[in-house]
């Protein structure tokens, strides 16, 4: 029931056949998800019926895995481009927020601001942009770069990019705009009317020091990965603590860690579901996924039953990499064990259990000040997502932790965010 108390935000993170690397092989996974728009329309409607704040699509401008033999054993090399996907979903849904990732490295701010504003108009004020700076060499090779930009350069470009986009959104429908910066120049305002929600919602996911700083400056929502309560709480406090410098209140930014749930009526069934998925992961696929996440290309040459080797610092995803390495040391995991464990949830928080057990876990992090909500990453679609929507969401609603209906019509209203001036 809805009272005046603080309630959690929920995102439905839609991704191909599922977040588990072997999801597509599961007997109940919809294997043609990447070419079936009706599948996505149905998922969006399921999320909307469960009153989720938003659906979220990750993105990369390239295939996920360079080794074609490995890639061909996963479903992630093909899928919808997310902005076109969300534009289609915008007119097939009415209330739910629509958030897509897009890169500051391979776009221009005028085009990106305009496209997301168009999505915002098509959806009546339900669009959001998840800013990423793109860390993969595979993407870089599709954009004429000879190599990945150093981490610091990417963030400098991203800061300017985000500032121009925010200014274009604020200035939409007015006359006169001029930006002349280090990476970008823009001479006209957007040729579209102002957003129905003031401006699309701005989301950030980078968890490095520079990523957190950019989030504190510009983001309305922060997605993050945290395995333990302690990590989640530390991140939460750190990020909220950075807001004052930019004249912002703690409540101006919603922090939503990813959670990869596996739910069933009994704990034994839930465990069995998880084991069934883990059994479907080929070793070479698990190791390759781990290698790519750790930004090292040759993990396969180390003994699979031995420990993770010492790794040099990389220009890729610095912060999440540290989490994975820390976990392998903490739990004394072999490469195979770590690969399987990681492949299941991609470094996100895995919870396996009954609806009440999962609700307990979410409640503990939410009430313990480690999260404002969660980005839900079902292991396979549609089955695992349906299970969360019909088993866990009602449990959260019974506890008063989640809304039983939408009160507003825009994504900003769902999230309790101020309308930008």
């Amino acid at each position, binding site marked *: 029931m809805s009272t005046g108390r603080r309630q959690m935000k929920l995102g439905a993170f839609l991704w191909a056949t599922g977040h588990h690397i072997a999801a597509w*092989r599961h007997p109940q996974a919809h294997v043609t998800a990447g070419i079936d728009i009706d599948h996505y*329309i149905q998922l969006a409607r399921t999320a909307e019926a469960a009153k989720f704040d938003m659906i979220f699509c990750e993105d990369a401008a*390239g295939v996920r895995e360079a080794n074609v033999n490995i890639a061909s054993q996963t479903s992630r*090399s093909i899928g919808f481009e997310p902005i076109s*996907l969300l534009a*289609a979903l915008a007119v097939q849904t009415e209330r739910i927020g629509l958030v897509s990732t897009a890169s500051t490295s391979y776009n221009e701010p005028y085009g990106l601001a305009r496209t997301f504003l*168009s999505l915002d108009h*098509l959806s009546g004020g339900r669009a959001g942009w998840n800013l990423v700076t793109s860390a993969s060499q595979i993407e870089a090779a599709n954009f004429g770069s000879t190599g990945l930009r150093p981490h610091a350069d990417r963030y400098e470009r991203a800061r300017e990019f985000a500032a121009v986009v925010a200014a274009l959104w604020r200035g939409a429908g007015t006359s006169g705009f001029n930006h002349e910066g280090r990476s970008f120049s823009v001479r006209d305002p957007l*040729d579209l*009317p102002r957003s129905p929600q003031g401006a699309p919602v701005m989301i950030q996911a980078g968890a490095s020091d520079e990523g957190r700083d950019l989030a504190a400056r510009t983001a309305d929502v922060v997605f993050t990965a945290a395995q333990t309560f302690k990590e989640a709480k530390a991140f939460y406090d750190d990020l909220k603590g950075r807001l004052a410098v930019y004249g912002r209140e703690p409540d101006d930014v919603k922090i939503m860690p990813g959670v990869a749930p596996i739910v069933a009526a009994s704990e034994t069934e839930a465990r069995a579901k998880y084991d069934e998925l883990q059994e479907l992961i080929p070793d070479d696929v698990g190791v390759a996924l781990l290698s790519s996440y750790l930004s090292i290309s040759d993990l396969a040459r180390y003994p699979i039953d031995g420990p993770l080797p010492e790794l040099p610092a990389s220009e890729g995803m610095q912060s999440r990499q540290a989490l994975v390495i820390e976990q392998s040391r903490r739990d004394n995991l072999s490469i195979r064990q770590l690969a399987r464990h990681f492949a299941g949830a991609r470094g996100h928080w895995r919870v396996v259990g009954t609806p009440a057990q999962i609700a307990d876990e979410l409640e503990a992090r939410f009430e313990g000040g480690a999260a404002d909500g969660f980005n839900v990453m079902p292991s396979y679609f549609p089955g695992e997502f349906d299970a969360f929507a019909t088993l866990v969401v009602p449990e959260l609603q019974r506890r008063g932790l989640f809304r039983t209906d939408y009160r507003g019509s825009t994504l900003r209203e769902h999230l309790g965010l101020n309308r930008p001036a």
Partner: protein
Amino acid sequence: MANGATMHLAVSLSPEAAPPHPPDAGPDFSLLTRSVQKAEAAGLDMVLLADSALAAGGGPNRQVPFEATTLLAALATVTSRIGLVAAASMVAHQPYNLARRFASLDIISHGRAGWHASMMPGPREAANFSRPEGIPTDDFRRRAVEFIGIVQGLWKGWDADALLFDKRGGRFFDPEKMHLLGHKGEYFSVRGPLNVAPSPQDTPVLVMSGLSEPDMDIAARTADVVLLDELSVERTKALHDDLKRRALAFGRSPGAIKVLMNVAAGAEMTARPDTFADRLEERFRSRACEGFNIDMPLKSTLDDFIGRVLPELHRRGLVLSGYSGATLRSHLGLAGEDRQ
């Protein structure tokens, strides 16, 4: 029939051509939907969606508050047969992103998507896309040739039967049927492949416009549809024949390119639908073009075209009723035509 064929018909929903009106008074998505559904019920081949950033000047009071590719995606879900073609600028986009967006639109629409590439960049584009110095015409042209080659190459990166979906065997796709592009050129280097499944219609349809003489070879080599501005019958026919000759020289069948003439529909069409039909018939029968792209500034003009001109064209046996295929390529008679 003189051509042994019927004419292809496209309509342009063009916000720039609308008379001035107050902000927020323009049609919303549901009005646009009704127009496109009306065009579909009338059996037209395709709707061309203009993109307002491509227009000169810019300004807040646009009739259509949507960017064209996002609008196409939305319209794809409320239509089932008509082709949907969006304008997208080669200045505003990177070729990988553009190829990917349209490949995705093609799957969302079940093979009804097309990209309209103009060889005349909007005057304000460079200024808003971090090129304040502008792009010289020769550079733009060389870059466009490279750009289009990359886009079409990426669209061919996955063979039609590449996806296996073999759960038991553990193979999602056949590695032999995925091809890297490996393009390294003057303006771009693009490794590929696209991370979108192969097109349901071979590739999205490429519509080109704004051609000047040096662009004719580019169009002859790459375009599926060429839009020509309305000139005298003789001049249009000369351009049409020239394009077909060049296509043949590039090893393509002349039928692999459809030439559509841009025609503005206005008060004159509403007043004299017969005369308007005569004008189309004359150009079509003299083989100056394979059809027409009718510019529709207002919803009432579309109603008049469909209600008054189209029945006349039907009576004269110049157009077919309904769709015989499912994809835009099929509507245009391009399915199975040679493609390099």
